[in-house]
């Protein structure tokens, strides 16, 4: 017995020795209950999970998901020539307080680099030896999506911030001397990524909402256009880039997969008209129901109905859409699965002088609006002046300018009147009109509905549960039109714009001569305002165009006088956030032009 114990002791001793000899292994933590980037990846589905996170992060950016603060509204809309805020010195109406310390710039910058860092992690992890892929195709598609996302982030950085460090590997330890690449290099990096993976992407996706080849081609068209503009700004020739931009847009527009919608389709194709009920004071109770009005529907309206947005819904215009789904929201599994558009774009009729004539937050007024983003008069009225009834995009069912009075003592009671005429009637001075005007405006079918989902389950017309376009064919066409115009093909540019006009059944069309006379790209930008209102990332468009287009248009079209008095400086990029400059102390970052001494 004693002998056995001795042997055991010796064995134990040897064992201890061998452990202590291998100190590195002993000291490396391999936690059983805490996952790290070093031990999490065991199957291919975990790589896809990283991609899922990015899909979600892009939805935050593109749909301004409320759970993550208000900065996305800035990135997409606020402060441009098209959108304003109902309080004069709030948001981007006011420019004296915009500088490199303004936190929304850094929020956008950080968000884009989070996407890049996750994409780099997915790309690296896809090659880990322990990962078993179902097929080679599964792996190439995973990498292709990750590279698409990285390019998407760099395209945004290039357009909005210009310069940025190029990072194509996961970062495992902090670094304080990131070298910044210039705008052309940033664009080129995104282009290279996309061109490598273009053919690894499927033409259509089996899972609705995944990245398809058309999305990469659209991105490439935009990137080459942006690159060409930057080349010309720097005094070199942009023709080759513009040609590439047109080539990639051609693949999308003429490739046979996509086509503009020009007939009724989808879930509500059979409804010739829709009915809005009117309740006294907007009280949603049966005995308050006092009236209704009907609107004639059309195919442009079909494009923005629930269940109609994805390509798989028969929507040949949809290239990429963010997914939001009521069941996913209701289950609690996806707390961001809704669009906050009725709130951020909708009318505010509570507690102000309009309340004497129209009240509530029902379908009649567009839902429960909070009005963070009102339209400036430019997309609201100016782009339709003289052609009010000559554009499906301005049809009542798409861009409803009327509401019905629901306050019994009001002269507007049960009258169907335009919001603008109400504002005129209740203002005694021009100043009063100016003050009330941004509180309510046209109700677009892009942000509101005649049938809000979930009302019987407690939803209060604050949210839409609809997929939402990130890339729609109309924008590809407008990119191509711009590239053609920049390349001197005025007839081609006019033809592209007229594709959208004709589809919207406009009789007013563009000629090559109009394009030739338009040095400031007003025709393209106006058409974007008609076709892509509430959709395009207007900041990206304006800043991508370079020169002084952004500041000129902001000064010209912004609603409030304070914009003109405080935008005393010129810029065509956002400032590099100060915390980026401060923390990257090992490589001096040169602040973007216009912001150096602000």
């Amino acid at each position, binding site marked *: 017995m004693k002998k056995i114990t001795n042997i055991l002791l010796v064995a134990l001793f040897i064992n201890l020795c061998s452990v202590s000899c291998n100190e590195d292994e002993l000291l490396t933590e391999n936690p059983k209950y805490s996952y790290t980037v070093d031990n999490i990846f065991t199957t291919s589905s975990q790589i896809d999970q990283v991609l899922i996170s990015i899909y979600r992060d892009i939805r935050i950016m593109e749909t301004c998901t409320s759970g993550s603060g208000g900065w996305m509204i800035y990135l997409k809309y606020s402060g441009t020539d098209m959108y304003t805020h109902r309080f004069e010195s709030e948001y981007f109406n006011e420019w004296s307080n915009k500088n490199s310390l*303004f936190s929304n710039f850094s929020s956008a910058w950080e968000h884009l680099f989070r996407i890049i860092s996750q994409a780099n992690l997915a790309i690296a992890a896809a090659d880990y030896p322990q990962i078993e892929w179902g097929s080679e195709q599964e792996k190439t598609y995973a990498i292709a999506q990750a590279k698409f996302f990285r390019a998407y982030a760099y395209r945004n950085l290039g357009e909005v911030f210009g310069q940025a460090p190029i990072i194509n590997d996961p970062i495992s330890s902090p670094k304080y001397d990131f070298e910044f690449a210039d705008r052309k290099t940033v664009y080129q990096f995104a282009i290279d990524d996309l061109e490598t993976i273009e053919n690894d992407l499927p033409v259509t996706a089996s899972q609705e909402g995944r990245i398809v080849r058309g999305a990469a081609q659209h991105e490439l068209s935009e990137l080459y256009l942006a690159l060409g503009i930057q080349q010309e700004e720097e005094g070199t020739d942009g023709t080759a880039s513009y040609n590439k931009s047109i080539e990639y847009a051609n693949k999308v527009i003429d490739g046979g997969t996509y086509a503009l919608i020009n007939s009724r389709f989808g879930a509500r194709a059979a409804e010739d008209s829709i009915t809005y009920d009117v309740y006294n004071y907007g009280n949603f109770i049966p005995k308050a129901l006092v009236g209704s009005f009907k609107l004639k529907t059309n195919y442009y309206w079909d494009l923005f109905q629930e269940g109609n947005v994805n390509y798989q819904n028969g929507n040949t215009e949809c290239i990429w859409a963010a997914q939001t789904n009521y069941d996913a929201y209701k289950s609690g599994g996806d707390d961001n699965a809704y669009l906050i558009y009725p709130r951020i774009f909708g009318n505010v009729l509570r507690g102000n002088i309009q309340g004497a004539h129209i009240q509530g937050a029902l379908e009649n007024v567009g839902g429960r609006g909070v009005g963070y983003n009102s339209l400036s008069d430019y997309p609201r009225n100016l782009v339709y002046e003289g052609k009010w009834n000559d554009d499906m995009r301005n049809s009542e069912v798409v861009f409803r300018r009327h509401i019905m009075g629901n306050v019994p003592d009001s002269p507007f009671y049960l009258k169907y009147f335009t919001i603008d005429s109400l504002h005129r009637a209740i203002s005694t001075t021009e100043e009063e009109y100016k003050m009330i005007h941004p509180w309510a405006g046209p109700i677009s079918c892009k942000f509101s509905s005649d049938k809000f989902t979930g009302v019987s389950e407690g939803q209060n017309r604050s949210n839409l549960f609809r997929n939402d376009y990130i890339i729609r064919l109309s924008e590809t066409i407008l990119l191509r039109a711009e590239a053609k115009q920049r390349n001197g093909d005025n007839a081609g540019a006019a033809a592209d714009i007229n594709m959208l006009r004709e589809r919207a059944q406009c009789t007013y069309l563009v000629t090559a001569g109009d394009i030739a006379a338009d040095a400031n790209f007003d025709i393209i930008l106006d058409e974007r305002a008609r076709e892509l209102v509430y959709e395009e990332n207007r900041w990206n468009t304006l800043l991508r165009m370079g020169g002084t287009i952004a500041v000129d248009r902001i000064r010209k079209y912004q609603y409030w006088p304070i914009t003109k008095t405080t935008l005393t*400086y010129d810029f065509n990029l956002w400032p590099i956030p100060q915390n*980026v400059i401060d923390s990257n102390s090992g490589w001096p970052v040169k602040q973007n032009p216009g912001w150096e001494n602000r």
Partner: protein
Amino acid sequence: MAWNITNEDFFDVSALDNLKLKAAWGQNGNQGVGPYSTLARVNNGIAAKIGYEFASDPGVVYYGLKQTNLANSELGWEQTDSWNFGFESEWFNSRLFVDLDVYASKTSDQIFQRVIPSMTGFTSMITSLGRVDNNGLELTVRTVNIQKNDFTWSSALTFWKNWNKIAELYGEDLNGDGVEDDDIASGYFIGHPVRTIYGYERIGTVQEEDTEYMELNGVPAGYPKYKDLDGEPGISANDRKILGYRDPNFSLNLSNTIAYKDFELYFMLQGIFGGNDYFLNSNPWDYRNAGNGSRKNSTMYAIPYWTPENRSNTYITPAFPEQGDGRFLGLQSRGFVRLQDLSLSYRFNQPWVKDINISNLKVFFAAKNLFTITNWGGDDPEIGSPQRSGTYPSPTTFSLGLNLSF
């Protein structure tokens, strides 16, 4: 280590009843961070709440996976070396007590959050910071001012001061000027306290005749005006400087106990003091009214805000944007003196108390937080929450009581 010097034979000072000298040295370590927090952890699964869906799989929620932080394998234990000197003394037949403690401590590798370039995908990381020194002293003087048969009055005064400073940061010289770099991004400056405030020096309010300033900075009249430090026209990031410190300068407590027959009165005044740019905190809403924005009346007090007629250099216009300008801090001293405690008690000593077998019967009235003298315009200066921060004010409490024991 302590030495009661009055016990020594050679010591003979008649006024001094007792003197104890103390000295101590200590070293201790502190892990400072939670388990695994130095690793590059990930959030995953339902609990991480990174949900997304694809319309082709109705009702199915996919869950993402996200790295939560950067790894930092170089984190070690915090180590603090501290020296402590002092004495306790007793004078004039126990009428005066003087205690002094002086300490000097050096903490190496203290764990901090460092702001890192967001291009890493993360905005901060846990890191250790070279060395932080804390030196300070605490002095307590207790006196028995009057001691008669049925009247005694005693007082106690405590003075405390701490000097906190960063002695070394990360040992980096990234800008190559031969001197160790400050960490502007995180707000750490060598030779200054950890809780330093860095920003723009406000020099008043833009008045209507400041046309040059307005034009240069695109600022309307009524907005805060800042000092241009770098000589370049226009207020920019180069015009930032160290504005002050969040830590108190020193604190003083004074308490008194007065007993007359069976009555006893006790009160304690507490003071924490600023001065020399210490004990500052941001309180922007004390200088403005929310006028243009959505909450016109949400400031706590009526404020004589700036107007073209009321050319204040303290207040600004209500039209100043709700989100601020990233620069305006509205720094205020939190220094205050407060009557923290007041109590009055009466002990029943009459014979009837004993007769009914009560060993102790006392009634008292006590009040806490009776009044505060301060220039701080937010809630309780001790807590330091500024206006509109949604905190409850510290309550003033009054209590009446009865102590009864058998």
